[in-house]
């Protein structure tokens, strides 16, 4: 019964401000609470309408019911700001990045999210100037029409009001799609929180507050009112004691550790599908554990604040602490059983008092929770006590080769040989999952009774999820999704796949962002292969699986399909200083809803937009896919592919991140790229790329006396700021490494391939010049003479300057008669590198090496 109550309150919390959305269409009259009430009467199944009184009553004076008081209090805590009377409503949602201070800087101008349903389209995802007054109402009306239509589907599906939890989650997903861009007009100051984020935070808090008796809720509401009044007189008025003393909720965090090793420590044999499968399984596992915790605590889905990429955050009741300790043991036991200690879930909690939701304190709390998680990870499996923890000592007995899996190296009784490689059942199950993912358009989940008896020996991913009470799978067509009559979820992995999706009484439907970019062998690859010389073709065909059509391309093929030198590119990239952005970026404006908004925005980019970019950049003109997403979520990503495509992807991601973040100069990312052969061990490649990324994070540059850190890329062993590397569209020029590389490549390409046939010695010379420079700089740095009095790095003048000038001029003259274009180009380069411009010496060699690799003749 209590569980049912929690769902009712959650629904009331979720819909408490829906009237504000309706009001904006201009078609609904009255205060937002009245409009909300009317919405409930028209669109919510009759059976639940009575539970939604708080939608109408949460602003009543006095508040008439316990439920209305819960929502009113949750509303205020979630907003974390003083409640203003029905103020003028902001027209559009300000990008949360415009409220952010990072690197001591702010976004140059206010940008607003477009008023569009959430789809991965340029016009919906990127913030822009605000719409003209005259366009706003029309935009809201269009948005509302879509929302209304979907709400009707939902009403029809739930006409008999059977499963509130299904209805609640469907409504939550609906709000995410349509209300993500609608400002929650509550706030006195800045309209940067969406109604979606505010509503779900209110729902979560309301459920936690149900533990407080009514008299206590009254007391808290009164104390808040008093505090608001006192703060109006003196900004630093301390909160009344009850706001500091009452724990109102627990902030709970879960973090799976061991992820890196789990994904990368596999051999190259059969790695392509296994890799994707392993990474995706981790995402499913995170979800399964998060839902398991919710189910065990009897909390509705609205209490899950974030899940993805190996961690989740949720809000629990103060009394849930002891149950959390049990859950911690249960989860560890299951993970230990199936993963022998490779994967561990750190689960930590932190009490929140009412005052924690004000004055930016919530982000410090969040930071403290992250610290708890970090410490919990250092005591892996400690909750199991000494006896059980011993179990995760290495399992195998060593030397039993017939049972050792050639992919993961573990001994397993059920190994069998597949494509000449001996594999264990878990590895086979990851491969199968990876293979199924390549055409997946839907992810489905079904709740089931958690197995009491843990599964026996096989230990494939499905069994592990089952142990957490979840069955999952992917499907290309809806007809392939099983229907057992139990609660289930069908989540579209593509925007277009949403269209055929209809909810029913036991099926939640919605959109799930997932970067799923898989290079599949197809007709274009067959034709490409057919054009190769016989010997090379034969060698590559050997790498292909039997009947390669529709299967994931092996690394060897991605390597061979590079432009220029055949190499696999491995990219790792993440947002710089993310922890600080969350902990300090919002300052004392940090509210519960704002933190949620920032987290939503960052995942929208890394779990959504990155996919669009990768699909676009990865495809060649003749239709071959050359990029493979191993992982992208939270704030970081890992891609593998043909090396030249990988570099272009990194550039595109960096460029769009700025556009996405409202041109905020303090929101940036660093990337590391390693080039390896297709048979190079993956965990080493991952390590190489990781070290490159760390190198990029060491980048610093000075502009106008101000030091900028990070925001760099390390490529071909050199770390350089993005600004200098170049994030512009592909073009030729001398301003950036990227434009110069393209220019040099065409300059030195053969004539029959459209080049200018300048000698390759040009590239060699530029490379040598930079080497000389780098060596001299290193020596000078040892002498401590590489900086001037202001501490700025100096351009080092030396022989490379006159030698380079001389060499280029001479080369230009040599071509004057026969090839004026080359002569002009090389002469231009000499002039460009003259005098003060010689700063380019720091990166010209990188451009030349890049051009050289691009132009490398593959037949030699």
């Amino acid at each position: 019964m209590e569980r049912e109550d929690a769902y009712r309150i959650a629904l009331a919390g979720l819909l408490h401000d829906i009237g504000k959305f309706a009001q904006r269409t201009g078609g609904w009259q009255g205060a937002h609470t009245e409009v909300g009430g009317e919405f409930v009467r028209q669109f919510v199944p009759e059976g639940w309408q009575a539970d939604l009184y708080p939608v109408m009553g949460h602003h009543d004076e006095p508040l008439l019911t316990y439920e209305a008081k819960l929502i009113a209090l949750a509303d205020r805590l979630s907003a974390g700001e003083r409640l203003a009377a029905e103020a003028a409503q902001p027209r559009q949602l300000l990008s949360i990045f415009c409220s952010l201070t990072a690197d001591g800087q702010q976004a140059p101008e206010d940008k607003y999210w477009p008023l569009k349903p959430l789809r991965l389209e340029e016009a919906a995802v990127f913030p822009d100037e605000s719409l003209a007054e005259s366009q706003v109402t029309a935009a809201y009306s269009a948005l509302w029409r879509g929302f209304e239509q979907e709400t009707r589907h939902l009403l029809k599906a739930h006409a008999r009001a059977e499963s509130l939890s299904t209805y609640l989650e469907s409504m939550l997903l609906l709000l995410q799609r349509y209300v993500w861009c609608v400002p929650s007009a509550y706030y006195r100051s800045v309209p940067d929180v969406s109604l979606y984020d505010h509503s779900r935070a209110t729902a979560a808090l309301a459920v936690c507050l149900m533990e407080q008796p009514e008299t206590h809720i009254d007391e808290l509401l009164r104390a808040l009112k008093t505090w608001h009044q006192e703060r109006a007189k003196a900004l630093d008025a301390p909160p009344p004691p009850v706001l500091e003393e009452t724990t109102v909720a627990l902030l709970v965090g879960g973090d799976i550790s061991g992820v890196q090793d789990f994904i990368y420590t596999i051999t190259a044999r059969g790695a392509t599908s296994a890799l994707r499968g392993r990474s995706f399984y981790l995402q499913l596992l995170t979800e399964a554990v998060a839902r398991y915790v919710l189910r065990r605590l009897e909390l509705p889905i609205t209490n899950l604040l974030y899940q993805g990429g190996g961690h989740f955050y949720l809000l629990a009741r103060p009394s849930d602490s002891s149950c959390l300790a049990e859950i911690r043991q249960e989860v560890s036991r299951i993970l230990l059983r199936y993963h022998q200690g490779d994967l561990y879930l750190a689960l930590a909690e932190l009490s929140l008092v009412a005052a924690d939701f004000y004055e930016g304190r919530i982000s410090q709390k969040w930071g403290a929770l992250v610290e708890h998680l970090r410490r919990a990870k250092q005591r892996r499996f400690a909750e199991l006590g000494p006896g059980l923890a011993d179990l995760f000592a290495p399992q195998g007995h060593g030397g039993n080769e017939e049972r050792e899996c050639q992919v993961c190296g573990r001994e397993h009784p059920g190994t069998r040989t597949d494509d000449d490689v001996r594999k264990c059942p878990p590895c086979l199950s990851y491969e199968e999952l990876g293979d199924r993912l390549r055409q997946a358009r839907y992810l489905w989940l079904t709740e089931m009774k958690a197995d009491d008896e843990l599964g026996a020996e096989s230990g494939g991913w499905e069994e592990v999820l089952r142990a957490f009470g979840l069955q999952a799978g992917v499907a290309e067509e809806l007809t392939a999704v099983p229907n057992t009559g139990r609660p289930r979820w069908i989540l579209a992995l593509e925007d277009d796949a949403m269209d055929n999706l209809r909810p029913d009484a036991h099926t939640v439907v919605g959109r799930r962002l997932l970067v799923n970019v898989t290079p599949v062998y197809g007709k274009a690859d067959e034709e490409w292969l057919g054009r190769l010389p016989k010997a090379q073709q034969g060698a590559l065909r050997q790498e292909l699986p039997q009947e390669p059509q529709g299967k994931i391309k092996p690394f060897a093929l991605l390597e061979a399909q590079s432009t220029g030198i055949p190499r696999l590119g491995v990219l790792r990239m993440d947002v710089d200083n993310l922890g600080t952005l969350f902990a300090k970026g919002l300052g004392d404006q940090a509210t519960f809803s704002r933190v949620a908004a920032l987290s939503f925005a960052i995942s929208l980019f890394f779990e959504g937009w990155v996919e669009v970019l990768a699909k676009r950049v990865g495809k060649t003109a003749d239709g071959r896919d050359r990029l493979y997403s191993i992982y992208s979520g939270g704030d970081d990503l890992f891609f593998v592919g043909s090396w030249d495509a990988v570099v272009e992807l990194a550039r595109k991601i960096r460029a769009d991140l700025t556009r996405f973040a409202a041109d905020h100069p303090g929101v940036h990312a660093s990337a590391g790229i390693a080039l390896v052969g297709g048979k190079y061990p993956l965990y080493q490649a991952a390590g190489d790329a990781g070290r490159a990324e760390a190198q990029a994070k060491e980048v610093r540059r000075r502009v106008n006396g101000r030091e900028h850190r990070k925001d760099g890329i390390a490529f071909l062993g050199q770390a350089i700021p993005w600004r200098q590397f170049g994030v512009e569209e592909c073009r030729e020029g001398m301003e950036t490494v990227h434009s110069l590389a393209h220019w040099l490549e065409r300059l030195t390409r053969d004539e029959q391939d459209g080049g200018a046939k300048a000698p390759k010695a040009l590239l060699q010379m530029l490379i040598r010049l930079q080497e000389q420079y780098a060596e001299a700089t290193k020596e000078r740095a040892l002498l401590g003479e590489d900086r001037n009095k202001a501490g700025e790095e100096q351009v080092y003048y030396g022989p490379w300057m006159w030698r380079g000038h001389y060499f280029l001029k001479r080369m230009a003259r040599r071509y004057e008669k026969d090839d004026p274009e080359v002569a002009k180009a090389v002469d231009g380069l000499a002039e460009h590198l003259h005098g003060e411009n010689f700063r380019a010496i720091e990166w010209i060699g990188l451009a030349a090496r890049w051009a050289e690799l691009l132009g490398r003749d593959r037949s030699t």
Partner: protein
Amino acid sequence: MMQQPRDSTFQRPSNEDLRAIITNPNEAKKLVEWANRLGKSLKDMGLTTSQIRALFGEVRQIQAEWRINRQRAFRRLVLLRPKMAYRARRERGRAVEELVAVLDPALNHVIQADPRPEGQQPGTDDNQDDNFQRFAEFFEAILAYHKAYGGQ
């Protein structure tokens, strides 16, 4: 002191500039700027590489010898001054004379310096060994720019 040339477009570094170029490792920017300017002017005055090939060859040889037999190298360096004066008089046109008018005082800053003290890092302030390296670089840079501007 030599006379200022009649051609007023030819600018010569002051003795202070020359001292900085030869004795101060942190004045490489000045070295490059002057070499560039001199290279261009000398080309305009019609300097040919063959006119000074012997001189530059001698500097390169001294540079090589410096590591093997410093004393003998130094003797050759001292003898370079009269050789330069001879070239300046013998070659046609004023170009070589102008070049020598710059190189001679520069060389003087090498010859008059004390050897680099034992144990001191190369590439440091005013000492004979490093000054000579800088002198050779200066000479090389002038010729490189001279050629870059089309000098033959």
